[in-house]
Protein backbone atom coordinates (compact mmCIF):
# COMPACT_ATOMS: atom_id res chain seq x y z
CA UNK A 1 0.00 0.00 0.00
CA UNK A 2 2.83 2.35 0.86
CA UNK A 3 4.45 1.64 -2.44
CA UNK A 4 1.22 2.47 -4.23
CA UNK A 5 1.08 5.83 -2.49
CA UNK A 6 4.62 6.68 -3.34
CA UNK A 7 4.17 5.83 -6.96
CA UNK A 8 1.18 8.11 -7.15
CA UNK A 9 3.08 10.87 -5.45
CA UNK A 10 5.89 10.59 -7.99
CA UNK A 11 3.48 10.40 -10.86
CA UNK A 12 1.65 13.63 -9.98
CA UNK A 13 1.83 16.18 -12.67
CA UNK A 14 1.47 19.92 -12.23
CA UNK A 15 0.31 20.40 -15.80
CA UNK A 16 -3.31 19.63 -16.67
CA UNK A 17 -3.67 16.18 -18.09
CA UNK A 18 -4.37 15.84 -21.83
CA UNK A 19 -7.55 13.93 -21.08
CA UNK A 20 -8.92 16.53 -18.65
CA UNK A 21 -11.07 19.50 -19.62
CA UNK A 22 -8.04 21.78 -19.28
CA UNK A 23 -6.39 19.77 -22.07
CA UNK A 24 -2.96 21.14 -22.91
CA UNK A 25 -4.17 24.57 -21.95
CA UNK A 26 -2.04 27.40 -20.60
CA UNK A 27 -2.32 28.50 -17.02
CA UNK A 28 -5.17 30.87 -17.74
CA UNK A 29 -7.74 28.13 -18.18
CA UNK A 30 -7.03 26.63 -14.80
CA UNK A 31 -9.34 27.90 -12.10
CA UNK A 32 -6.79 26.98 -9.45
CA UNK A 33 -3.13 26.28 -10.01
CA UNK A 34 -0.44 25.86 -7.39
CA UNK A 35 3.15 24.82 -7.76
CA UNK A 36 5.30 23.62 -4.93
CA UNK A 37 2.82 25.11 -2.46
CA UNK A 38 4.16 24.47 1.04
CA UNK A 39 3.21 25.57 4.53
CA UNK A 40 5.19 24.83 7.65
CA UNK A 41 3.89 25.82 11.08
CA UNK A 42 6.92 25.86 13.36
CA UNK A 43 8.35 22.39 12.83
CA UNK A 44 5.28 20.74 11.39
CA UNK A 45 4.74 20.63 7.65
CA UNK A 46 1.02 21.03 7.09
CA UNK A 47 1.19 21.20 3.30
CA UNK A 48 4.15 19.71 1.50
CA UNK A 49 4.90 21.02 -1.98
CA UNK A 50 1.59 20.37 -3.70
CA UNK A 51 0.81 21.09 -7.35
CA UNK A 52 -2.91 21.53 -7.75
CA UNK A 53 -4.46 21.85 -11.19
CA UNK A 54 -8.18 22.54 -11.21
CA UNK A 55 -9.55 23.05 -14.74
CA UNK A 56 -12.22 25.67 -15.28
CA UNK A 57 -15.68 24.19 -15.22
CA UNK A 58 -14.62 21.21 -13.14
CA UNK A 59 -16.19 19.99 -9.96
CA UNK A 60 -13.01 19.13 -8.11
CA UNK A 61 -13.27 16.90 -5.07
CA UNK A 62 -10.44 17.67 -2.69
CA UNK A 63 -10.27 14.62 -0.49
CA UNK A 64 -8.26 13.57 2.50
CA UNK A 65 -8.63 12.67 6.15
CA UNK A 66 -9.01 15.34 8.79
CA UNK A 67 -5.64 16.97 9.37
CA UNK A 68 -4.21 16.09 5.95
CA UNK A 69 -3.73 19.75 4.99
CA UNK A 70 -6.91 20.48 3.02
CA UNK A 71 -8.03 23.50 5.02
CA UNK A 72 -4.54 25.00 5.18
CA UNK A 73 -4.35 24.64 1.39
CA UNK A 74 -7.70 26.38 1.02
CA UNK A 75 -6.60 29.18 3.37
CA UNK A 76 -3.51 29.69 1.22
CA UNK A 77 -5.62 29.83 -1.96
CA UNK A 78 -7.79 32.52 -0.37
CA UNK A 79 -4.83 34.58 0.86
CA UNK A 80 -5.59 34.01 4.54
CA UNK A 81 -2.34 32.17 5.14
CA UNK A 82 1.04 32.93 3.61
CA UNK A 83 2.74 29.88 2.13
CA UNK A 84 6.24 29.02 3.28
CA UNK A 85 7.15 28.26 -0.31
CA UNK A 86 5.59 27.88 -3.74
CA UNK A 87 3.12 29.92 -5.76
CA UNK A 88 -0.61 29.92 -6.36
CA UNK A 89 -2.97 31.39 -8.92
CA UNK A 90 -6.74 31.61 -8.65
CA UNK A 91 -8.68 32.22 -11.88
CA UNK A 92 -5.34 32.91 -13.53
CA UNK A 93 -4.42 35.66 -11.08
CA UNK A 94 -1.51 35.29 -8.67
CA UNK A 95 -2.30 35.39 -4.96
CA UNK A 96 -1.66 37.59 -3.03
CA UNK A 97 -0.62 40.11 -5.72
CA UNK A 98 -4.06 40.16 -7.38
CA UNK A 99 -6.01 38.73 -4.48
CA UNK A 100 -8.58 41.51 -4.39
CA UNK A 101 -9.42 41.13 -8.05
CA UNK A 102 -9.47 37.32 -7.96
CA UNK A 103 -11.41 36.90 -4.73
CA UNK A 104 -14.32 38.97 -6.02
CA UNK A 105 -14.94 36.10 -8.39
CA UNK A 106 -14.64 33.47 -5.66
CA UNK A 107 -17.28 32.43 -3.17
CA UNK A 108 -15.93 30.53 -0.24
CA UNK A 109 -16.83 28.51 2.78
CA UNK A 110 -13.82 27.93 5.00
CA UNK A 111 -13.79 25.57 7.95
CA UNK A 112 -17.41 25.94 8.89
CA UNK A 113 -19.76 28.90 9.11
CA UNK A 114 -18.91 31.98 11.20
CA UNK A 115 -21.27 34.90 11.75
CA UNK A 116 -22.17 37.45 14.37
CA UNK A 117 -24.44 35.57 16.78
CA UNK A 118 -26.62 38.52 17.76
CA UNK A 119 -27.37 39.57 14.17
CA UNK A 120 -30.05 37.92 12.04
CA UNK A 121 -29.10 35.77 9.08
CA UNK A 122 -30.14 38.56 6.74
CA UNK A 123 -28.19 41.21 8.70
CA UNK A 124 -25.11 39.00 8.60
CA UNK A 125 -25.32 38.73 4.83
CA UNK A 126 -25.92 42.49 4.60
CA UNK A 127 -22.73 43.07 6.56
CA UNK A 128 -20.66 40.91 4.20
CA UNK A 129 -22.25 42.63 1.23
CA UNK A 130 -21.46 46.05 2.74
CA UNK A 131 -17.84 45.01 3.02
CA UNK A 132 -17.64 44.32 -0.72
CA UNK A 133 -16.45 47.40 -2.59
CA UNK A 134 -17.76 46.02 -5.88
CA UNK A 135 -21.21 45.16 -4.58
CA UNK A 136 -23.96 47.49 -5.73
CA UNK A 137 -25.87 48.70 -2.65
CA UNK A 138 -29.01 49.24 -4.75
CA UNK A 139 -29.27 45.54 -5.56
CA UNK A 140 -28.15 44.33 -2.13
CA UNK A 141 -31.63 43.52 -0.89
CA UNK A 142 -32.51 41.51 -3.99
CA UNK A 143 -29.20 39.64 -4.04
CA UNK A 144 -29.44 38.77 -0.35
CA UNK A 145 -33.00 37.51 -0.81
CA UNK A 146 -31.99 35.45 -3.83
CA UNK A 147 -29.10 33.87 -1.91
CA UNK A 148 -31.33 33.09 1.07
CA UNK A 149 -33.96 31.66 -1.25
CA UNK A 150 -31.42 29.46 -2.99
CA UNK A 151 -30.36 27.78 0.25
CA UNK A 152 -33.90 27.62 1.63
CA UNK A 153 -33.39 30.03 4.52
CA UNK A 154 -36.00 32.65 3.61
CA UNK A 155 -38.31 31.67 6.46
CA UNK A 156 -35.54 32.01 9.05
CA UNK A 157 -33.89 35.11 7.56
CA UNK A 158 -35.00 37.39 10.40
CA UNK A 159 -33.98 35.04 13.19
CA UNK A 160 -30.82 35.69 15.13
CA UNK A 161 -27.91 33.57 13.99
CA UNK A 162 -27.53 32.39 17.58
CA UNK A 163 -30.85 30.53 17.23
CA UNK A 164 -29.86 28.74 14.02
CA UNK A 165 -29.24 25.00 13.95
CA UNK A 166 -25.91 23.75 12.63
CA UNK A 167 -27.53 22.92 9.30
CA UNK A 168 -29.03 26.41 8.99
CA UNK A 169 -25.65 27.95 9.81
CA UNK A 170 -24.04 25.89 7.09
CA UNK A 171 -26.68 27.03 4.62
CA UNK A 172 -26.17 30.66 5.59
CA UNK A 173 -22.46 30.28 4.89
CA UNK A 174 -23.27 28.87 1.46
CA UNK A 175 -25.70 31.76 0.89
CA UNK A 176 -22.86 34.19 1.68
CA UNK A 177 -20.78 32.52 -1.02
CA UNK A 178 -23.63 33.10 -3.49
CA UNK A 179 -24.12 36.85 -2.91
CA UNK A 180 -22.35 37.59 -6.16
CA UNK A 181 -22.07 35.70 -9.43
CA UNK A 182 -18.96 33.58 -9.00
CA UNK A 183 -16.51 31.90 -11.34
CA UNK A 184 -15.19 29.68 -8.58
CA UNK A 185 -16.69 28.30 -5.40
CA UNK A 186 -14.32 27.00 -2.74
CA UNK A 187 -16.36 24.92 -0.35
CA UNK A 188 -14.59 23.40 2.62
CA UNK A 189 -16.63 20.48 3.99
CA UNK A 190 -19.95 22.01 2.89
CA UNK A 191 -22.03 19.10 4.16
CA UNK A 192 -20.61 19.08 7.68
CA UNK A 193 -23.40 19.04 10.20
CA UNK A 194 -26.13 18.54 7.65
CA UNK A 195 -28.63 15.70 7.87
CA UNK A 196 -28.90 13.29 4.93
CA UNK A 197 -31.63 15.42 3.35
CA UNK A 198 -29.53 18.57 3.73
CA UNK A 199 -26.51 16.76 2.32
CA UNK A 200 -28.53 15.80 -0.75
CA UNK A 201 -29.71 19.38 -1.17
CA UNK A 202 -26.21 20.78 -0.98
CA UNK A 203 -25.06 18.19 -3.48
CA UNK A 204 -27.78 19.12 -5.92
CA UNK A 205 -27.05 22.82 -5.34
CA UNK A 206 -23.41 22.21 -6.23
CA UNK A 207 -24.54 20.30 -9.28
CA UNK A 208 -26.76 23.13 -10.47
CA UNK A 209 -24.06 25.74 -9.88
CA UNK A 210 -21.58 23.62 -11.80
CA UNK A 211 -23.98 23.29 -14.70
CA UNK A 212 -24.08 27.11 -14.84
CA UNK A 213 -20.35 26.96 -15.56
CA UNK A 214 -19.06 27.74 -12.07
CA UNK A 215 -15.94 25.82 -11.13
CA UNK A 216 -16.44 24.12 -7.79
CA UNK A 217 -13.57 23.15 -5.53
CA UNK A 218 -15.11 21.08 -2.76
CA UNK A 219 -13.20 19.48 0.07
CA UNK A 220 -14.35 16.54 2.11
CA UNK A 221 -13.00 13.81 4.30
CA UNK A 222 -15.79 11.56 3.06
CA UNK A 223 -15.53 10.24 -0.46
CA UNK A 224 -19.20 9.24 -0.50
CA UNK A 225 -20.27 12.87 -0.05
CA UNK A 226 -18.65 14.08 -3.23
CA UNK A 227 -17.97 11.17 -5.56
CA UNK A 228 -21.32 11.40 -7.33
CA UNK A 229 -20.86 15.03 -8.33
CA UNK A 230 -17.13 15.31 -9.00
CA UNK A 231 -15.49 15.36 -12.39
CA UNK A 232 -12.02 15.57 -10.86
CA UNK A 233 -10.37 14.36 -7.70
CA UNK A 234 -7.33 15.35 -5.71
CA UNK A 235 -6.37 13.23 -2.75
CA UNK A 236 -4.35 14.56 0.18
CA UNK A 237 -2.45 12.53 2.69
CA UNK A 238 -0.26 13.97 5.41
CA UNK A 239 0.20 17.24 3.56
CA UNK A 240 0.97 15.70 0.19
CA UNK A 241 -1.17 15.44 -2.91
CA UNK A 242 -1.02 11.69 -3.57
CA UNK A 243 -3.39 11.53 -6.54
CA UNK A 244 -4.97 14.01 -8.92
CA UNK A 245 -6.86 13.92 -12.20
CA UNK A 246 -10.26 13.11 -13.61
CA UNK A 247 -12.21 10.54 -11.66
CA UNK A 248 -11.40 7.93 -14.34
CA UNK A 249 -7.71 8.76 -14.26
CA UNK A 250 -7.52 8.45 -10.51
CA UNK A 251 -9.41 5.19 -10.63
CA UNK A 252 -7.22 3.74 -13.37
CA UNK A 253 -4.15 4.58 -11.39
CA UNK A 254 -5.25 2.17 -8.72
CA UNK A 255 -3.55 -1.18 -9.14
CA UNK A 256 -5.62 -4.16 -10.18
CA UNK A 257 -6.10 -6.79 -7.54
CA UNK A 258 -6.12 -10.54 -8.06
CA UNK A 259 -8.43 -12.77 -6.05
CA UNK A 260 -8.30 -16.56 -6.18
CA UNK A 261 -10.26 -19.25 -4.36
CA UNK A 262 -8.55 -22.60 -4.25
CA UNK A 263 -8.42 -25.74 -2.09
CA UNK A 264 -4.58 -25.66 -2.36
CA UNK A 265 -3.61 -22.12 -1.30
CA UNK A 266 0.01 -22.93 -0.45
CA UNK A 267 0.66 -24.43 -3.86
CA UNK A 268 -1.09 -21.43 -5.44
CA UNK A 269 1.19 -19.00 -3.61
CA UNK A 270 4.24 -20.72 -5.09
CA UNK A 271 2.82 -20.50 -8.60
CA UNK A 272 1.73 -16.88 -8.27
CA UNK A 273 5.03 -15.72 -6.85
CA UNK A 274 6.79 -17.61 -9.60
CA UNK A 275 4.78 -15.56 -12.11
CA UNK A 276 5.78 -12.30 -10.44
CA UNK A 277 2.57 -11.50 -8.56
CA UNK A 278 3.38 -9.11 -5.70
CA UNK A 279 2.20 -9.01 -2.10
CA UNK A 280 0.55 -12.41 -2.15
CA UNK A 281 -1.53 -13.05 0.96
CA UNK A 282 -3.59 -16.04 2.08
CA UNK A 283 -6.78 -16.02 4.14
CA UNK A 284 -8.09 -19.57 4.40
CA UNK A 285 -8.83 -20.62 0.82
CA UNK A 286 -8.66 -17.08 -0.56
CA UNK A 287 -5.42 -15.85 -2.09
CA UNK A 288 -4.91 -12.18 -2.99
CA UNK A 289 -2.12 -10.34 -4.77
CA UNK A 290 -1.19 -7.59 -7.18
CA UNK A 291 -0.82 -9.06 -10.68
CA UNK A 292 0.95 -5.98 -12.13
CA UNK A 293 0.69 -6.37 -15.93
CA UNK A 294 -0.15 -10.09 -15.94
CA UNK A 295 -3.38 -11.04 -17.69
CA UNK A 296 -5.89 -13.22 -15.90
CA UNK A 297 -5.84 -16.02 -18.46
CA UNK A 298 -2.03 -16.35 -18.13
CA UNK A 299 -2.37 -16.77 -14.39
CA UNK A 300 -5.20 -19.30 -14.62
CA UNK A 301 -3.33 -21.31 -17.25
CA UNK A 302 -0.26 -21.46 -15.05
CA UNK A 303 -2.30 -22.50 -12.03
CA UNK A 304 -4.08 -25.27 -13.91
CA UNK A 305 -0.80 -26.39 -15.44
CA UNK A 306 0.64 -26.75 -11.95
CA UNK A 307 -2.36 -28.77 -10.85
CA UNK A 308 -3.83 -26.10 -8.56
CA UNK A 309 -7.62 -26.23 -8.48
CA UNK A 310 -9.32 -22.95 -9.30
CA UNK A 311 -12.78 -22.43 -7.79
CA UNK A 312 -13.05 -18.72 -8.44
CA UNK A 313 -10.76 -16.20 -9.99
CA UNK A 314 -10.95 -12.49 -10.67
CA UNK A 315 -8.69 -9.57 -11.55
CA UNK A 316 -10.37 -6.21 -11.01
CA UNK A 317 -9.71 -2.54 -10.47
CA UNK A 318 -10.45 -1.45 -6.91
CA UNK A 319 -13.55 0.61 -6.28
CA UNK A 320 -13.01 4.33 -5.78
CA UNK A 321 -13.63 3.78 -2.11
CA UNK A 322 -10.99 1.05 -1.79
CA UNK A 323 -8.63 3.33 -3.62
CA UNK A 324 -9.41 6.26 -1.34
CA UNK A 325 -8.72 4.11 1.70
CA UNK A 326 -5.50 2.88 0.11
CA UNK A 327 -4.36 6.41 -0.74
CA UNK A 328 -5.20 8.02 2.53
CA UNK A 329 -4.30 5.28 4.98
CA UNK A 330 -6.56 3.39 7.26
CA UNK A 331 -10.02 4.35 8.41
CA UNK A 332 -10.49 6.81 11.19
CA UNK A 333 -6.91 7.73 11.95
CA UNK A 334 -6.22 11.43 11.92
CA UNK A 335 -3.16 12.20 9.86
CA UNK A 336 -0.27 14.13 11.34
Amino acid at each position, binding site marked *: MTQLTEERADARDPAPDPRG*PGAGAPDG*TLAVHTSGLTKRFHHQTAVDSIDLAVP*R*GAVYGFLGPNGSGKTTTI*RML*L*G*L*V*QPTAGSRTVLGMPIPQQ*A*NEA*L*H*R*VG*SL*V*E*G*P*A*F*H*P*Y*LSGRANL*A*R*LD*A*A*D*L*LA*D*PRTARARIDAALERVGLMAAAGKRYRAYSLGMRQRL*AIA*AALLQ*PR*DLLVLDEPTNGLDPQGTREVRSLIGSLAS*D*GTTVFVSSHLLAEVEQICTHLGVMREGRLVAQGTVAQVQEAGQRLLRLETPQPQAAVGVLEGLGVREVTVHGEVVRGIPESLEGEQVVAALVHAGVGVRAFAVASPSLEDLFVALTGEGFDVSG
Partner: protein
Amino acid sequence: MSAVEATVEATREPVRRRRMAPSTRLLRSELRLIGGRRRNQAGLAVLAAVPILMAVVVRFFSSGPGENDGPNFLSSVTANGLFVPLAALGVEVAMFLPLAMSMLAGDSIAGEANIGTLRYLLTVPVDRTRLLAVKYASLCIGALWGVAAVVVPGAIVGLALFGAGPLPTLSGTQLTFGEGLWRVLLVSLYLSAGLAAFAAIGLFISTLTEQPIGAAIAAMIVNIVAWILDQVPQLDWLHPWLFMHDWLSFADLMRDPIHWANLTHGLWIDLAYAVVFWLLAWARFSGKDVTS
Protein backbone atom coordinates in the same frame (compact mmCIF):
# COMPACT_ATOMS: atom_id res chain seq x y z
CA MET B 1 -15.93 25.10 -22.38
CA SER B 2 -16.79 27.98 -24.69
CA ALA B 3 -20.20 28.27 -23.07
CA VAL B 4 -18.49 28.44 -19.71
CA GLU B 5 -16.18 31.19 -20.88
CA ALA B 6 -19.07 33.12 -22.32
CA THR B 7 -20.80 33.05 -18.94
CA VAL B 8 -17.60 34.07 -17.26
CA GLU B 9 -17.14 37.02 -19.60
CA ALA B 10 -20.75 38.08 -19.24
CA THR B 11 -20.58 38.13 -15.47
CA ARG B 12 -17.20 39.82 -15.33
CA GLU B 13 -18.09 42.72 -17.59
CA PRO B 14 -20.19 44.83 -15.19
CA VAL B 15 -17.53 44.43 -12.52
CA ARG B 16 -14.88 45.92 -14.78
CA ARG B 17 -17.06 48.89 -15.63
CA ARG B 18 -17.85 49.73 -12.02
CA ARG B 19 -15.10 51.63 -10.32
CA MET B 20 -13.89 50.88 -6.82
CA ALA B 21 -15.24 54.12 -5.43
CA PRO B 22 -14.55 54.87 -1.78
CA SER B 23 -17.60 53.68 0.07
CA THR B 24 -18.77 54.27 3.62
CA ARG B 25 -20.89 51.11 3.62
CA LEU B 26 -18.43 49.06 5.64
CA LEU B 27 -17.92 51.88 8.15
CA ARG B 28 -21.68 52.28 8.56
CA SER B 29 -22.03 48.53 8.97
CA GLU B 30 -19.27 48.63 11.57
CA LEU B 31 -21.02 51.41 13.51
CA ARG B 32 -24.31 49.51 13.42
CA LEU B 33 -22.48 46.47 14.74
CA ILE B 34 -20.94 48.45 17.61
CA GLY B 35 -24.06 50.45 18.36
CA GLY B 36 -26.42 47.51 18.09
CA ARG B 37 -24.61 45.43 20.64
CA ARG B 38 -26.36 45.20 24.00
CA ARG B 39 -23.07 45.21 25.86
CA ASN B 40 -22.04 48.51 24.28
CA GLN B 41 -25.44 50.04 24.90
CA ALA B 42 -25.14 49.07 28.55
CA GLY B 43 -21.66 50.62 28.62
CA LEU B 44 -23.01 53.91 27.24
CA ALA B 45 -25.76 53.84 29.86
CA VAL B 46 -23.16 53.48 32.62
CA LEU B 47 -21.14 56.38 31.19
CA ALA B 48 -24.32 58.48 31.13
CA ALA B 49 -25.36 57.49 34.64
CA VAL B 50 -22.32 59.08 36.29
CA PRO B 51 -23.11 62.77 35.54
CA ILE B 52 -26.77 62.20 36.34
CA LEU B 53 -25.85 60.61 39.65
CA MET B 54 -23.42 63.41 40.46
CA ALA B 55 -25.93 66.14 39.66
CA VAL B 56 -28.67 64.51 41.70
CA VAL B 57 -26.38 63.92 44.68
CA VAL B 58 -25.05 67.50 44.66
CA ARG B 59 -28.50 68.95 44.20
CA PHE B 60 -30.35 66.96 46.85
CA PHE B 61 -27.86 65.49 49.31
CA SER B 62 -24.72 67.58 49.36
CA SER B 63 -23.79 69.93 52.16
CA GLY B 64 -20.60 71.00 50.44
CA PRO B 65 -18.12 69.80 47.82
CA GLY B 66 -15.48 67.30 48.87
CA GLU B 67 -11.82 67.00 47.97
CA ASN B 68 -10.88 66.10 44.39
CA ASP B 69 -7.49 65.61 42.78
CA GLY B 70 -8.53 66.60 39.29
CA PRO B 71 -9.82 69.96 38.18
CA ASN B 72 -12.54 70.49 40.73
CA PHE B 73 -15.60 71.41 38.75
CA LEU B 74 -17.85 69.69 41.24
CA SER B 75 -17.64 72.65 43.59
CA SER B 76 -18.84 74.93 40.78
CA VAL B 77 -21.73 72.71 39.76
CA THR B 78 -24.27 74.70 41.69
CA ALA B 79 -23.18 77.85 39.88
CA ASN B 80 -23.94 76.57 36.40
CA GLY B 81 -25.41 73.33 35.03
CA LEU B 82 -22.69 73.09 32.37
CA PHE B 83 -20.22 72.20 35.09
CA VAL B 84 -21.98 68.85 35.54
CA PRO B 85 -20.63 67.29 32.30
CA LEU B 86 -17.19 68.79 33.00
CA ALA B 87 -17.12 67.36 36.51
CA ALA B 88 -18.32 64.00 35.20
CA LEU B 89 -15.61 63.95 32.52
CA GLY B 90 -13.03 64.68 35.21
CA VAL B 91 -14.29 61.65 37.15
CA GLU B 92 -14.65 59.27 34.20
CA VAL B 93 -11.58 60.14 32.17
CA ALA B 94 -9.19 57.96 34.13
CA MET B 95 -11.21 54.73 34.31
CA PHE B 96 -14.68 54.56 32.79
CA LEU B 97 -13.98 56.13 29.42
CA PRO B 98 -10.72 54.19 28.83
CA LEU B 99 -12.52 51.03 29.96
CA ALA B 100 -15.24 51.59 27.37
CA MET B 101 -12.58 52.27 24.76
CA SER B 102 -10.67 49.12 25.77
CA MET B 103 -13.76 46.98 25.28
CA LEU B 104 -14.41 48.40 21.81
CA ALA B 105 -10.80 48.30 20.70
CA GLY B 106 -10.18 44.84 22.10
CA ASP B 107 -13.14 43.59 20.14
CA SER B 108 -12.16 45.22 16.86
CA ILE B 109 -9.90 42.56 15.34
CA ALA B 110 -9.71 39.91 18.06
CA GLY B 111 -13.51 39.77 18.32
CA GLU B 112 -13.87 39.01 14.62
CA ALA B 113 -11.02 36.50 14.81
CA ASN B 114 -12.57 34.85 17.85
CA ILE B 115 -15.91 34.06 16.20
CA GLY B 116 -14.29 33.41 12.81
CA THR B 117 -15.96 36.26 10.91
CA LEU B 118 -12.51 37.71 10.18
CA ARG B 119 -11.78 35.02 7.58
CA TYR B 120 -15.07 35.70 5.82
CA LEU B 121 -14.50 39.48 5.79
CA LEU B 122 -11.02 38.99 4.34
CA THR B 123 -12.28 36.66 1.61
CA VAL B 124 -15.11 39.02 0.56
CA PRO B 125 -12.45 40.37 -0.07
CA VAL B 126 -11.68 43.30 2.21
CA ASP B 127 -8.15 44.56 1.89
CA ARG B 128 -6.44 44.22 5.27
CA THR B 129 -5.23 47.82 5.29
CA ARG B 130 -8.72 49.01 4.51
CA LEU B 131 -10.18 46.83 7.26
CA LEU B 132 -7.76 48.29 9.81
CA ALA B 133 -8.55 51.81 8.63
CA VAL B 134 -12.30 51.24 8.89
CA LYS B 135 -11.94 49.57 12.28
CA TYR B 136 -9.89 52.49 13.55
CA ALA B 137 -12.30 55.05 12.13
CA SER B 138 -15.13 53.27 13.93
CA LEU B 139 -13.14 53.38 17.18
CA CYS B 140 -12.61 57.14 16.77
CA ILE B 141 -16.35 57.59 16.31
CA GLY B 142 -16.85 55.30 19.30
CA ALA B 143 -14.66 57.67 21.35
CA LEU B 144 -16.91 60.56 20.33
CA TRP B 145 -19.99 58.53 21.30
CA GLY B 146 -18.47 57.70 24.67
CA VAL B 147 -17.69 61.31 25.50
CA ALA B 148 -21.09 62.43 24.17
CA ALA B 149 -22.73 59.83 26.42
CA VAL B 150 -21.24 61.68 29.38
CA VAL B 151 -21.59 65.26 28.16
CA VAL B 152 -25.07 65.35 26.64
CA PRO B 153 -27.05 63.77 29.51
CA GLY B 154 -24.80 65.62 31.97
CA ALA B 155 -25.52 68.96 30.35
CA ILE B 156 -29.26 68.32 30.13
CA VAL B 157 -29.59 67.20 33.75
CA GLY B 158 -27.21 69.92 34.96
CA LEU B 159 -29.10 72.67 33.19
CA ALA B 160 -32.38 71.28 34.45
CA LEU B 161 -31.24 71.15 38.07
CA PHE B 162 -28.93 74.15 38.30
CA GLY B 163 -29.99 76.39 35.44
CA ALA B 164 -28.10 78.09 32.64
CA GLY B 165 -26.37 81.30 33.36
CA PRO B 166 -23.06 82.94 32.60
CA LEU B 167 -20.18 80.54 33.16
CA PRO B 168 -17.45 81.47 35.65
CA THR B 169 -14.03 80.45 34.27
CA LEU B 170 -11.09 79.08 36.23
CA SER B 171 -9.43 82.46 35.63
CA GLY B 172 -12.21 84.21 37.51
CA THR B 173 -13.87 85.90 34.53
CA GLN B 174 -17.32 85.06 33.20
CA LEU B 175 -18.30 83.54 29.85
CA THR B 176 -21.64 83.95 28.14
CA PHE B 177 -23.76 80.80 28.05
CA GLY B 178 -23.12 80.38 24.31
CA GLU B 179 -19.37 80.71 24.78
CA GLY B 180 -19.64 78.22 27.66
CA LEU B 181 -21.40 75.66 25.45
CA TRP B 182 -18.70 76.13 22.83
CA ARG B 183 -15.99 75.49 25.45
CA VAL B 184 -17.75 72.31 26.59
CA LEU B 185 -17.82 71.12 22.98
CA LEU B 186 -14.08 71.81 22.65
CA VAL B 187 -13.44 69.83 25.85
CA SER B 188 -15.44 66.92 24.40
CA LEU B 189 -13.45 66.95 21.16
CA TYR B 190 -10.15 67.22 23.03
CA LEU B 191 -10.88 64.21 25.24
CA SER B 192 -12.24 62.24 22.29
CA ALA B 193 -8.91 62.79 20.54
CA GLY B 194 -7.10 61.48 23.60
CA LEU B 195 -9.33 58.41 23.76
CA ALA B 196 -8.88 57.84 20.02
CA ALA B 197 -5.11 57.78 20.55
CA PHE B 198 -5.60 55.24 23.33
CA ALA B 199 -7.85 53.24 20.97
CA ALA B 200 -4.91 52.87 18.57
CA ILE B 201 -3.01 51.06 21.34
CA GLY B 202 -6.07 48.86 21.86
CA LEU B 203 -6.34 48.18 18.13
CA PHE B 204 -2.72 47.08 18.03
CA ILE B 205 -3.22 44.75 21.01
CA SER B 206 -6.31 43.39 19.31
CA THR B 207 -4.22 42.25 16.34
CA LEU B 208 -2.00 40.20 18.64
CA THR B 209 -4.62 37.77 19.92
CA GLU B 210 -7.87 35.99 19.16
CA GLN B 211 -9.25 36.72 22.63
CA PRO B 212 -11.20 40.01 22.67
CA ILE B 213 -11.58 40.07 26.46
CA GLY B 214 -7.87 39.43 26.87
CA ALA B 215 -7.10 42.29 24.49
CA ALA B 216 -9.48 44.60 26.37
CA ILE B 217 -7.91 43.72 29.71
CA ALA B 218 -4.41 44.24 28.32
CA ALA B 219 -5.41 47.67 26.99
CA MET B 220 -6.91 48.56 30.36
CA ILE B 221 -3.70 47.48 32.10
CA VAL B 222 -1.74 49.78 29.78
CA ASN B 223 -4.04 52.61 30.81
CA ILE B 224 -3.74 51.91 34.53
CA VAL B 225 0.04 51.56 34.37
CA ALA B 226 0.25 54.89 32.54
CA TRP B 227 -1.77 56.64 35.26
CA ILE B 228 0.43 55.07 37.94
CA LEU B 229 3.67 56.04 36.17
CA ASP B 230 2.30 59.56 35.84
CA GLN B 231 2.16 59.71 39.66
CA VAL B 232 5.79 58.70 40.20
CA PRO B 233 7.87 61.89 40.66
CA GLN B 234 11.16 60.09 39.84
CA LEU B 235 9.82 59.50 36.32
CA ASP B 236 8.98 63.12 35.58
CA TRP B 237 11.08 62.99 32.39
CA LEU B 238 8.64 60.34 31.13
CA HIS B 239 5.41 62.10 32.06
CA PRO B 240 5.09 64.39 29.03
CA TRP B 241 5.30 61.31 26.77
CA LEU B 242 2.54 59.30 28.45
CA PHE B 243 -0.55 59.28 26.27
CA MET B 244 -2.83 60.32 29.13
CA HIS B 245 -0.57 62.90 30.74
CA ASP B 246 -2.34 65.89 29.20
CA TRP B 247 -5.88 64.55 29.35
CA LEU B 248 -6.70 66.47 32.52
CA SER B 249 -5.40 69.62 30.84
CA PHE B 250 -8.87 69.81 29.31
CA ALA B 251 -9.49 72.17 32.23
CA ASP B 252 -7.28 74.69 30.43
CA LEU B 253 -10.11 75.09 27.94
CA MET B 254 -12.12 76.61 30.79
CA ARG B 255 -9.63 79.41 31.34
CA ASP B 256 -9.98 82.88 29.91
CA PRO B 257 -8.23 83.15 27.58
CA ILE B 258 -7.70 79.45 26.80
CA HIS B 259 -4.32 78.22 27.97
CA TRP B 260 -3.12 76.33 24.88
CA ALA B 261 0.38 75.07 25.75
CA ASN B 262 -0.52 71.73 27.36
CA LEU B 263 -3.49 71.24 25.04
CA THR B 264 -1.38 71.52 21.90
CA HIS B 265 1.26 69.25 23.40
CA GLY B 266 -1.49 66.77 24.27
CA LEU B 267 -2.88 66.80 20.74
CA TRP B 268 0.56 66.19 19.23
CA ILE B 269 1.07 63.26 21.62
CA ASP B 270 -2.36 61.93 20.61
CA LEU B 271 -1.43 62.14 16.95
CA ALA B 272 1.94 60.47 17.53
CA TYR B 273 0.37 57.57 19.47
CA ALA B 274 -2.38 57.14 16.90
CA VAL B 275 0.06 57.01 13.98
CA VAL B 276 2.66 54.81 15.66
CA PHE B 277 0.22 52.25 17.04
CA TRP B 278 -1.92 52.14 13.91
CA LEU B 279 1.25 51.42 11.92
CA LEU B 280 2.28 48.76 14.43
CA ALA B 281 -1.17 47.20 14.09
CA TRP B 282 -0.79 47.31 10.31
CA ALA B 283 2.69 45.78 10.42
CA ARG B 284 1.37 42.97 12.58
CA PHE B 285 -1.90 42.38 10.75
CA SER B 286 -1.02 42.84 7.10
CA GLY B 287 1.09 39.69 6.82
CA LYS B 288 -0.47 37.67 9.62
CA ASP B 289 -1.73 34.15 8.99
CA VAL B 290 -5.44 34.07 9.75
CA THR B 291 -6.01 30.57 11.08
CA SER B 292 -9.05 31.28 13.24
